[in-house]
């Protein structure tokens, strides 16, 4: 080739012919439409039907949105403005915006507080949810957040959440201290804690027994009430008999637990002591407050409402029920019959009862037992019930994750010489939780939507707000689509975000066992 003189050749192409464009029906939008929408007679028919439906829905709904009235004082005024045209009355959202978001009793000059709490929630949740992106130090913020948010939303003195946080930190320090102790020192400590706890328990039981007997004598054994009378008497006597053995038994159990690294038991006992001292929190924080006053206007729980209430219940209950669910799932797999039994009974009982029943118990039945003046916080009661409910479900989801792990993982962890806590924390849970993510998110989304059930116990969450004060007000009587549509939109935004996050997390954790 190289020695062929170029002049001998009649024509040499020096450049390629530019490619001609593909036929129009094989490119761009037309190709896409042909392949995806009209690829056969069946798909063509389906496409046409779908197109017809979409057009008729849009053309039907568009004027409703387009003609929407945004400024009016009542539904009658709306109708006057519309004058017979189809159109939404979005003015209700403007007029009752504050009520839909915060409830109708939250003080107006304090609206900034839940708003700040919400913004801080985004900041505080970020390091926990996106651990790889944000520095680990930001987790401190996450730890502080619950106490700060409580103070912002409920108001009152700052010292109360500070005290609670302080006692938790103190427990952590004690845990560290005990962990580093020599075995015999640990045993002595366990002995002291066991003794204190046993004495405290015996004292509580003694008081309880006295009151049971007192109630029995109040009821009196005549007619139908003879049954409760007998029950209370029996319970009282039983408790009297149990006072000393129970104290000794529990105290001894705590003492014994020091031998097999029973730090958990000691810490639990400490927590129990805190709970017993809980009634001191109010006066002590009050005393602190009188020295250095740090106070916001207090807002009682009954005044919470609107979407804020859903957000409070949703975030608190999800964050509480995941760890509780993990504990329950582990407990159900435990080899210790007592722990296993308690967990199984709890899970099966709670799963066997509808949430609405638990809410009714929280709202009305407890009021029978609690004295009228000291009824403890309504939202707290509801949070406890919803958390119990969802933690039972999450426990079963996580148990599924635990069961999916090959037995070899457990054995490998043991053969490395890891103890139970280490094996669970480092080997078992990371894998089991990864498997459980879709299930947990399922429960979380369901729980978030279930928060609207509180409207049946006359708490004004967003649905309660709509059903009660808005739809039944003289101004907005029987307005329907606009308000429910708005609520649906809010819930969709939150639930869709949760689901998107979970999918992102799954991709992050993908380790590909294949």
């Amino acid at each position: 080739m190289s020695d062929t003189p170029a002049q001998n050749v009649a024509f040499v192409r020096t450049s390629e012919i530019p490619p001609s464009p593909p036929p129009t029906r094989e490119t761009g939008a037309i190709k896409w439409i042909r392949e995806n929408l009209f690829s056969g007679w069946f798909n063509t028919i389906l496409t046409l039907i779908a197109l017809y439906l979409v057009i008729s829905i849009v053309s039907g709904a568009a004027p409703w949105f387009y003609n929407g009235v945004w400024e009016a004082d009542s539904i009658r005024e709306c109708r006057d403005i519309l004058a017979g045209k189809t159109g939404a009355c979005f003015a209700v959202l403007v007029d009752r915006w504050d009520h839909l978001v915060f409830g109708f009793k939250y003080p107006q000059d304090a609206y900034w507080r839940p708003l700040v709490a919400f913004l801080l929630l985004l900041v505080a949740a970020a390091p926990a949810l996106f651990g790889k992106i944000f520095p680990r130090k930001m987790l401190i913020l996450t730890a502080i957040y619950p106490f700060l948010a409580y103070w912002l939303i409920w108001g009152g003195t700052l010292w109360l959440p500070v005290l609670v946080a302080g006692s938790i930190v103190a427990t952590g320090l004690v845990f560290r201290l005990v962990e580093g102790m020599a075995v015999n020192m640990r045993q002595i400590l366990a002995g002291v804690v066991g003794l204190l706890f046993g004495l405290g328990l015996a004292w509580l039981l003694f008081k309880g027994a006295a009151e049971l007997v007192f109630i029995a004598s109040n009821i009196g054994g005549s007619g139908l009430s003879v049954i409760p009378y007998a029950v209370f008497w029996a319970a009282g006597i039983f408790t009297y008999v149990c006072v000393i053995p129970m104290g000794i038994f529990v105290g001894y159990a705590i003492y014994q637990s020091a031998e097999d690294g029973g730090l958990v038991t000691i810490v639990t006992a400490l927590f129990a002591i805190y709970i017993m001292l809980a009634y001191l929190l109010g006066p002590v924080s009050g005393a602190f407050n009188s020295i250095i006053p740090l106070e916001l206007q207090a807002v009682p729980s009954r005044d919470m409402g609107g979407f804020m209430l859903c957000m409070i219940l949703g975030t608190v209950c999800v964050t509480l029920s995941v760890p509780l669910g993990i504990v329950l799932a582990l407990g159900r797999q435990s080899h210790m019959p007592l722990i296993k039994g308690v967990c199984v009974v709890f899970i099966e009982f709670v799963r066997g009862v509808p949430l609405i029943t638990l809410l009714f118990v929280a709202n009305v039945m407890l009021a029978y037992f609690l004295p009228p003046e000291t009824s403890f916080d309504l939202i707290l009661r509801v949070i406890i019930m919803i958390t119990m409910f969802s933690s039972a479900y999450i426990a079963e989801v996580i148990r599924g994750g635990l069961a999916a792990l090959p037995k070899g993982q457990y054995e490998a962890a043991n053969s490395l010489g890891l103890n139970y806590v280490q094996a669970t924390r480092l080997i078992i849970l990371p894998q089991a939780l990864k498997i459980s993510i879709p299930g947990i998110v399922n429960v979380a989304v369901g729980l978030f939507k279930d928060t609207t059930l509180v409207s049946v116990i006359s708490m004004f969450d967003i649905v309660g707000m709509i059903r009660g004060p808005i739809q039944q007000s003289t101004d907005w009587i029987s307005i329907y689509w606009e308000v429910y549509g708005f609520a649906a939109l809010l819930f969709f935004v939150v639930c869709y975000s949760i689901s998107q996050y979970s999918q992102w997390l799954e991709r992050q954790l993908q380790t590909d066992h294949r």
Partner: protein
Amino acid sequence: MNKTIFFGALATAALAAGIAGASTLDEVKARGKLNCGVNTGVPGFAEPDANGVWQGFDVAVCRAVAAAVLGDPTAVEFVPTTGKTRFTALASGEIDLLARNTTWTFSRDVDLKFEFTGVNYYDGQGFIVNRNLGVSSAKELDGATICIQTGTTTELNLADFFRGNGISYEPVPVETGAEGVQQYTAGACDAYTTDASGLAAQRANFEDPTAHLILPEIISKEPLGPLVRHGDSEWADIARWTLNALIAAEELGVTSVNLAELAAGTDNPEINRLLGSEGDLGGMLGLDSDWAARAIGVAGNYGEIFANTIGEATPIGLARGLNAQWINGGLLYSPPFR
């Protein structure tokens, strides 16, 4: 172990409740607030306005009692209750007074152990139908689908009425009034039934009120009134006579306008006894002498409250009807203040 502690705590609580349940009046005074159960929302009767302040005809009863007892009509903690929670809330002591359009019936009074302290609104159950249906009497509703609120006396009345007339119907259960209206206007049921006051209020807000007809039959008696727990007659007396004071004030011509003038003393001894310038009726109740004047001072007498919350000048547009004074042919009849 934990269960026992829990049980002990419950027992302590129950014990404290038993001791504390001595006198509702003392409790309310010590608390400085009246816990009053109201509806979560009935137009004109109980509804929070755009500022979150409770307004309405039932709410006025709460405010009047608070004014009589505590001297401050705003010293009320309104506890919204649903049809399902109202009675437990009252029985458990969570509220002191329930003013939530509750029908006075035998079983509620006797079996549920409540004490109705009077009637603040005489209602009755009616039907609303679309004129297109061509029905002019409830007895022509054979085979109709009827929207009905569950958990209310209206449900039972409906069953009684149709059984008594030997005709059949198909119930469409709804939870709230708003849902009922929505179902009715969407055509899910031929007729909607609830208290006639509710029907009138709802119809006034239909897009075309003239297209709907409220049938002439009133199939039940629904005397709605405030109620308290059994066992504290002093407290029941206060609630009863506060309501009577509002009614008597209208009969005697005491209004919010001339109240101050009349309270100074008049030639009518009954007005003087009512407003406390003569006799010591307040003392007998355990209150001071101008208790009734304070109650009337909140929003005027019964007639004024009616006119401002649900009367014909309001969007609710209810006529006095049975709720007129007895001298005007109604049923309102307060026993004498003597």
